[in-house]
């Protein structure tokens, strides 16, 4: 794949949830392109299809219409090229931290010594050296989410899909992890899509913020993050003089979107 084509692409993607009560349009004719190494965020009111978009990108289910492309090729199912981080750490309580971080490698049948070493190195990198032999129950929530990050990175995905991975954490641990995730992804040159409710988090972490509207889910507005903020770590970005203006712009868009969508919950 050449670097000019986008890493991730949605082309005219629509998705419909069909149930007993009928069929509802969750995402309507969405166009989106994410470049190599780019970090974008999806924000929007509930019911705007954020998580649906992430699931489509992960290949959990095919879109009802349109195409989802990864590196120019259609996505057919979950693959090792795409890592996914959930709101909960979802560690297996009966596996050690080392074995939890290596879960993706076990599933892919990658058992070489080099792969094992990378798991140890990743655990060290996320600040968990010395916990390899422990069990998830012995770790705090923040540490467990770090294990989940190592587990997501271990199979060396090109793309990371982050499904509100910080929303269940305490404020200061959340900000520590935001810094860690952003620094790690920049260093490894990964492409990332973050879904979040937290506008400040979206503004502080990403290169571009996509504001979604609802009923049906679609793109309302794209807001590019100024270069000056982009270069900073999230905790620093929040202190930047132009951060408030960016936050306010997102706030206005989100509110407008919420009014347009009506109170159809």
């Amino acid at each position, binding site marked *: 794949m050449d670097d000019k084509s986008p890493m991730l692409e949605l082309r005219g993607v629509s998705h419909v949830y069909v149930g007993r009560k009928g069929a509802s349009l969750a995402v309507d004719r969405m166009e989106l392109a994410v470049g190599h190494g780019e970090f974008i965020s999806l924000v929007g009111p509930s019911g705007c299809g954020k998580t649906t978009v992430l699931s489509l990108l992960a290949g959990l289910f095919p879109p009802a219409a349109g195409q989802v492309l990864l590196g120019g090729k259609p996505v057919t199912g*979950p693959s090792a090229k795409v890592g996914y981080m959930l709101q909960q750490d*979802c560690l297996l309580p009966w596996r050690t931290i080392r074995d939890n971080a290596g*879960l993706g490698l076990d*599933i892919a049948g990658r058992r070489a010594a080099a792969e094992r070493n990378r798991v140890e190195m990743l655990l060290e990198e996320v600040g968990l050296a010395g916990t390899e032999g422990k069990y998830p129950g*012995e770790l*705090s929530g923040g*540490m467990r989410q770090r294990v989940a990050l190592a587990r997501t990175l271990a199979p060396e995905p090109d793309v990371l899909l982050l499904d509100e991975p910080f929303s269940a954490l305490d404020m200061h641990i959340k900000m520590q992890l935001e810094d860690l995730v952003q620094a790690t992804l920049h260093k490894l040159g990964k492409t990332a899509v973050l879904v979040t409710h937290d506008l400040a988090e979206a503004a502080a972490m990403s290169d571009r913020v996509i504001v979604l509207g609802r009923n049906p889910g679609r793109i309302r507005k794209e807001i590019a993050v100024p270069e000056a903020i982009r270069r900073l770590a999230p905790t620093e970005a929040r202190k930047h003089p132009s951060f408030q203006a960016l936050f306010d712009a997102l706030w206005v868009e989100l509110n407008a979107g919420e009014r347009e969508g009506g109170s159809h919950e």
Partner: protein
Amino acid sequence: MSDDKACHPAGGDKEAASSEDNGGPHGGDDRAGWLKGLHAAYRRRERSIGAAVLSVQLLLLAAFVLLWEAAGRLKWIDPLLFSYPTKIAAQLASSSADGTLWPHVGVTVAETAAGFVLGTLIGTALAALLWWFPFVSKVFDPYLVVFNSLPKVALGPIFIVAMGQGFLSILSVTLSMTVIVTTIGIYNRFRDSEPGLVKVVRLLGGTRLQLFRLVILPASFPVIISTLKVNVGLAWVGVIVGEFLVAKEGLGYLIIYGFQVFNFTLVLSTLVVIAAAATLMYQGVALLEKKLVSGGREPS
């Protein structure tokens, strides 16, 4: 992050920490001594409650045995029907000394062990089958409900006709009691596995077999072991009833034989043996459970 961790120190560290502090300055010494004193007082209280419970338990047992003995010897109750403890003890002593008791114990224990182990294994295998083929589970759902509510002992005559008077029939009665309950219980556990864990394995590209091996089965392990415990009880019922119906040996046979020759000392002494063997078996499985389930698991 590290201060979060400090809120949940591992249980085993407590004593080591207090003894390490002894080398500190005078003030620290007092602190450590104070904590030690509190801990010692707590332990004393625990021990004295434990001792009180045990002595009341023993007292109750002794009172029951003495009352029974007195009632039997003084003819408050008919000793022919209800016997009394020394008579039962003498019966047990002679039958275990001349070796006539042991083959019966051996046969029944073997049948029961086979019953609860096989029942749990077959039940788990059937549960896996239902989990693997959702269509099959939908089809069989009403049949399972009917079979589960049926008093399985009623199938005894059919097993005897089909499999003859012996081990196979007894095992079949036992399995009919254990398998379906096990299947339903474990299948429900399989189905209720935490959706997040299932999603993680799917997102990492896991196959259905990997999902079963990595999440569904290990997550259900505690339930499988506790089902094993329930099945110990059910298997005893199945085996004794099976022996009532067909056996030429075994503890259930001894009870029926004692009943037929009107030797209720034999019946009651056999009951004592059953109670002892069943308790031992149950405790054995409980010990196994502790060993298998505790290691590294979240206290949830």
